[in-house]
């Protein structure tokens, strides 16, 4: 990477928003919004994004946003889409912005139904691996071992494999992205935008207070997540064709884990177990990409 972010910024995301200083979610949202363009309506469910969008009567997004309930983000986006279609506005983009709690946990029922009906929306999940907006509790996206407000000794079970769940719905497009590669994020948004049907992008957002990170380390932590294969960058088309992006530089999982306070209670054996989790997942993705490449 040459560090140049190759996307057009039309100022659709305003400064003065209330994200934590240094949060990569604001950065990612800026790229996503400007790639989508002004002919977009967004639905946002209670999450960090909803806070970043701002309090009435201000808005940090220069597109219409509806703040909906946490469990009905996808259903709410489908309602906007159907109304726009009924009113002849077929080209307007409908964007759904949700957190991992609203996606992996309480919103999965509505999301599954939207995917089953292949409703024409782009669903973005900002995945900070927990309920960070409420002070940092465990969600089903929290990885094994991570300490949160509700798992002070570390979560004992794995992170839910959301991309496989969504792939099983055979929706046209699923991708993961990271704020450490904004060009890749923009390219995936651009690609999804050009498609129809239910599309989903999960963006990893290292949470500064929730993960115990320094203010200037969000992007670097996201990069380590990708390089250590803890958060693989993947594209899945039609639920079966996989493109797995092998990182140019690889780093051991321990580098990623030791950079965060949420893992500091782990001993060597537990770290080895997490490394095994990562290796298993990577190998499974490799097999999928080999058998059915994108």
């Amino acid at each position, binding site marked *: 990477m040459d560090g140049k972010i190759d996307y057009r910024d039309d100022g659709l995301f305003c400064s003065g928003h209330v994200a934590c200083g240094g949060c990569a979610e604001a950065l990612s949202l800026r790229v996503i919004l400007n790639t989508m363009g*002004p*002919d*977009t*309506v967004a*639905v946002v469910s209670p999450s960090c994004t*909803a*806070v970043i*969008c*701002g*309090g*009435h*009567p201000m*808005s940090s*997004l*220069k*597109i*219409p*946003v*509806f*703040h*909906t*309930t946490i*469990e*009905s983000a*996808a*259903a*709410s*986006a*489908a*309602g*906007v889409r*159907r*109304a*726009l*279609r*009924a*009113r002849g*506005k077929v080209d*307007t983009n409908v964007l759904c912005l949700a957190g991992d709690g609203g996606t992996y946990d309480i919103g999965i*029922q*509505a999301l*599954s*139904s*939207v995917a*089953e*009906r292949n*409703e024409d929306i782009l669903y973005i999940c900002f995945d900070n691996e927990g309920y960070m907006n409420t002070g940092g509790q465990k969600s089903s996206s929290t990885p094994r071992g991570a300490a949160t407000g509700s798992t002070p000794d570390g979560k004992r079970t794995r992170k839910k494999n959301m991309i496989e769940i969504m792939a099983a719905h055979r929706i046209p497009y699923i991708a993961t992205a990271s704020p450490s590669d904004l060009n890749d994020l923009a390219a995936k948004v651009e690609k999804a935008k050009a498609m129809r049907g239910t599309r989903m992008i999960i963006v990893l957002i290292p949470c500064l207070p929730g993960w115990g990170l320094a203010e200037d380390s969000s992007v670097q932590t996201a990069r380590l997540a990708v390089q250590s294969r803890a958060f693989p960058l993947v594209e899945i088309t039609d639920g079966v064709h996989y493109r797995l992006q092998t990182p140019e530089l690889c780093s051991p999982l321990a580098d990623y884990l030791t950079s965060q306070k949420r893992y500091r209670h782990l001993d060597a054996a537990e770290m080895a177990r997490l490394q095994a989790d990562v290796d298993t997942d990577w190998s499974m993705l490799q097999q999928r990409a080999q058998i059915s490449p994108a």
Partner: protein
Amino acid sequence: MKDMPGTDAPRGALRLMSGNHAVAEGARLARPEVTPVYPITPQTPILEKLTELQSAGEFVTEMLTPESEHSVMATAMTASLSGARVFTATSSQGLMLMHELLHYAAGARATIVMFNVNRTPASPWGFWPDQLDSLSQRDTGWVQLYSESPQDSLDLVIQAFRLAERVRLPVMISHDAFYVSHAVEPVDVPAQDLVDGFLPPFEAEFRLDPDIGRSIGAPVDQATWNQSRRDMAEAMGRVIAEFTRFGAQWGRLTGRVHAPLQLYRTEDAEIVFVTLGSLAGTARVAVDMLRRAGMRAGLVKLCLFRPLPAEALRSALDGVPVALVLDRNYSVGTGGVLHQELKSALHGTANATRVHGLLTGVGGVDVPVEQLVDLAQEFRERVPENGPIWIDGHGR
């Protein structure tokens, strides 16, 4: 409702249909642009008739079948806020699953029209006519109408859209499970032209639209939240006058006038039944029987429950010595909901009506006409109790 004598209102085709099919016909005529639905007994004939009409090309709408009533209401809310006319239908457990979003949709001023088939809330599981499902949603900010018959249901669906879009509040209409939902009666189905003339296309001033740019529902401060409820109160305050006006206009077009309260033989009444839903039909026959037996009985039927037409109720009961409130619902720990509401409407007024709260038909037990006749005779001279009185019905 009876046809008004002397009107030259054009008649549509008189067709035999169930209450639920009458709802579907009413919805079709209202031309909703988005129709999310989820099946639940005894609402399903509404859903199936609508999908059948859509499939035959007789009903043009964006129809979708989400995985739950909760998602139905989420979809209905955002479709409405995006400028579409929206219809849906549900019952009991489905309505109660929507509860969170009923508040949300009303607060966001979505103009959804929803039909609810009144059915006992579980547990225990039951499928019987009982109005606790919708009456327990009385604080959600929805206008609530109650239908007595298939014809009423068709007429009210169409008027509900006019009302919702006028005051910018969602409207819920209910009719009783089976007694109305599945009972087959002759129904006048108005011509599409007539309905189009009464109900112009929906043009939402505030909506989610990139050409407008306005966001809806962002977090507010205390004063703004407080103001949002004052604004809803102002809108609710206009419902009685607007419904009266639209009901009269509908009456001129069809011969069937609707109003917040329907009074039957109350002018000189010494005792009146006060009720809503299909029990009104039973009570009307009881009134006639009592009159023939020499008792001056009458009926006050509430078509509008939210907002409560309190002033009209006070005026209807002015000088009436005895009122028997017939509640086909029971709020555990207090009593019949309509009983409580009526007492609150009369509180602090000079009205000296002795109000008896009778729990008739709770859980769907049958309430025969003869029983209402007996009750009128029994309670005519009794001193009212503050709480409710359980009445045994058929099968109990």
